[in-house]
């Protein structure tokens, strides 16, 4: 016990500080994303730390649970968002375990969105929740991507995928369609994205309409960690050890990816739900054709 406890405290502090780092980096990148969009639209835009300021501001705001909310689901869903993305962060960036678990966790994010929307009792929240189920079409390319990566590397463990790239070069040049499909997933997760039907302004704020105050702050924290994890995953799986083994280069890579995504988000209109789903299914078809082609030729 005497030896275990200090060790365990060390690991807990380590885990919390890594989570805090992911939140701060993710939050700054999302602030940067907002800044780029503003500049493209000819506005000065808020400062880059605005996302973090919002998170801290909402954390200290008074809340009251709406009378229509279904508790404890209403509160637990906001907590579950952070649980899901912290788990993805640790299993991905720290332990470099299976890619399949991370895909599973990404699907759990849909449960968070759906649960948030439906538990609030608000019609806007409900519509956001239902749209999050539609936008599950974005996950279908993800499974095709996982399949095609397995065909190439014979493993789904992130550590093995990074080692494969150490010997054979970045996967992005070998599987451009898969990288494109994953990139579309990144775009669909970005705020103000053409695929952002879940938080469409025509349904107020979608599933987070009734989650305000500290609950919104928790959702903002989970979104920042999610942004960090998804960018990290893209860099680790498709660009590989050249960038991912150096923390500074990883940060630069994340900033560049955020910059590209921001430009795309600023220049594209929001698609309607049916167009968004149709486009994502088309991309899936593209990756599946590539997968079949690779399976036949291997």
């Amino acid at each position, binding site marked *: 016990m005497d030896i*275990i406890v200090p060790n365990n405290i060390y*690991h807990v502090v380590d*885990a919390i500080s890594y989570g805090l780092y992911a939140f701060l980096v993710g939050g700054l990148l999302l602030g940067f994303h907002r800044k780029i969009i503003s500049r493209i639209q000819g506005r000065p835009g808020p400062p880059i730390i605005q996302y973090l300021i919002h998170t801290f501001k909402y954390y*200290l705001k008074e809340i009251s649970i709406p009378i229509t909310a279904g508790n404890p689901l209403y509160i637990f869903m906001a*907590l579950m968002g952070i649980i899901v993305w912290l788990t993805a962060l640790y299993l991905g960036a720290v332990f470099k375990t299976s890619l399949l678990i991370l895909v599973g966790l990404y699907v759990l994010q849909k449960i968070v969105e759906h649960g948030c929307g439906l538990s609030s009792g608000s019609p806007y929240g409900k519509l956001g929740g239902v749209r999050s189920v539609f936008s599950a079409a974005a996950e279908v390319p993800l499974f095709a991507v996982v399949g095609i990566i397995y065909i190439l590397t014979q493993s789904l463990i992130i550590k093995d995928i990074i080692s494969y790239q150490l010997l054979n070069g970045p996967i992005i040049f070998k599987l451009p369609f898969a990288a494109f499909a994953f990139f579309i997933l990144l775009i669909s997760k970005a705020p103000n994205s053409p695929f952002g039907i879940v938080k469409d302004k025509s349904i107020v704020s979608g599933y987070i309409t009734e989650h305000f105050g500290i609950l919104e702050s928790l959702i903002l924290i989970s979104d920042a960690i999610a942004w960090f994890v998804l960018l990290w995953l893209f860099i680790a799986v498709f660009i590989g050890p050249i960038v991912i083994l150096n923390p500074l280069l990883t940060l630069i890579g994340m900033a560049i990816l955020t910059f590209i995504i921001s430009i795309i988000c600023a220049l594209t209109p929001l698609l309607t739900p049916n167009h968004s789903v149709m486009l994502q299914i088309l991309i899936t078809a593209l990756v599946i054709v590539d997968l079949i082609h690779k399976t036949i030729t291997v």
Partner: protein
Amino acid sequence: MTPEKKSGIISLIIGIIGFTYIIFYSNNVLLIYLGTALFTPFMVYGIGMMLNPKTKRREEGLIPFRGW
């Protein structure tokens, strides 16, 4: 006690019990990390609810009177 405060206290208790368990009884690093991922949000929510300012409503559950 308001339902908000009650939920904060419950989640703080869950968080403290969880962290106590993973610090004192766990000997697997992966389990400690996953436990941290599981219980940190409960602590964050619990602490946040303790910092939640006093309601400006005259009575709980009523919206403030904003004039006719």
